[in-house]
């Protein structure tokens, strides 16, 4: 029983598993953010109205935020 409860202690097995799953989930999200950047690029090539640079900047900021989150999770968790 004590061995089972020790899994939930900080640094225990459950939290290591949670960290791995969190990093996997965030990695998938980074791929999604890359897809958004690619698609915004493709969409702005199809239609140019004068707001393209701002849209690309927003997509890149989103990607950087995703990368920042995964790095944060890697070092803090």
């Amino acid at each position, binding site marked *: 029983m004590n061995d089972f409860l020790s899994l939930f202690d900080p640094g225990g097995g459950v939290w290591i598993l949670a960290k791995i799953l969190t990093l996997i989930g965030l990695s998938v999200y980074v791929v999604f953010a890359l*897809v958004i950047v690619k698609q915004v690029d493709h969409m702005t090539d199809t*239609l140019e109205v004068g707001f393209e640079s701002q849209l690309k900047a927003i997509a890149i900021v*989103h990607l950087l935020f995703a990368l920042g989150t995964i790095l944060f999770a890697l070092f803090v968790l």
Partner: protein
Amino acid sequence: MPDIFVAKETKKESMKEVKDNLDNTKPDPVNDLKKSPKARHKLPGHTRSPLAAYNYCPTDVKFAVADKEEKVVLFLRRHPITNIPWILLASIMCLAPMVLTLFPPFGLLPSGYQAVVIMTWYLITLAFIIEQFLSWYFNVNIVTDERMFDVDFVNLVYREITDAHIDQIEDVTTVMGGVVRTMFNYGDVMIQTAGQVPRIEFLAVPKPDRVAQVLRELRVEEETEKLEGRVR
């Protein structure tokens, strides 16, 4: 002493008033397209804003499937008011972490995990906002002097572009129903065509009656070109 001379009061009209008055006149897309960009800026319905939902004879619009000689007459999007539902939802999503911290299950997590959960939540919120904005920004309807296009980005990885020639238009129907649509003057324009795609829809566009008028003028011009043998 009686007034000898009283000058008539002349009311100086602002540019907006001039445009609003001209907005009630019949559109003339054929001649308006021949005007210089500077002259076009004074046309009613013309704007330089890239976020406009209604732009008449825009000068800065380029799209991939257009011919070199084709000129854009109308550039349409859904009325900005249609964005209010997702803006409200995004606002709630932004404020949600403040409430989340009050719930016990969240409080049981270590502080590092709490921070990661909140960052992930804001990531998802940002992705939602970007997706909704892109959906509004890129789902456009374009009317040129030769064709009309319906550009639909269904989602980030699926795009559908439908086009039909102006001379294939058989019927144009405008639908504007409901309090909000009447107040903000936006509605649907349904275009029946003789082409492979039998119907093209411009949904929730501003000034649907004006759009129908422009399409009518373009059809008349196409028929005139056919009669005179000037078909491109």
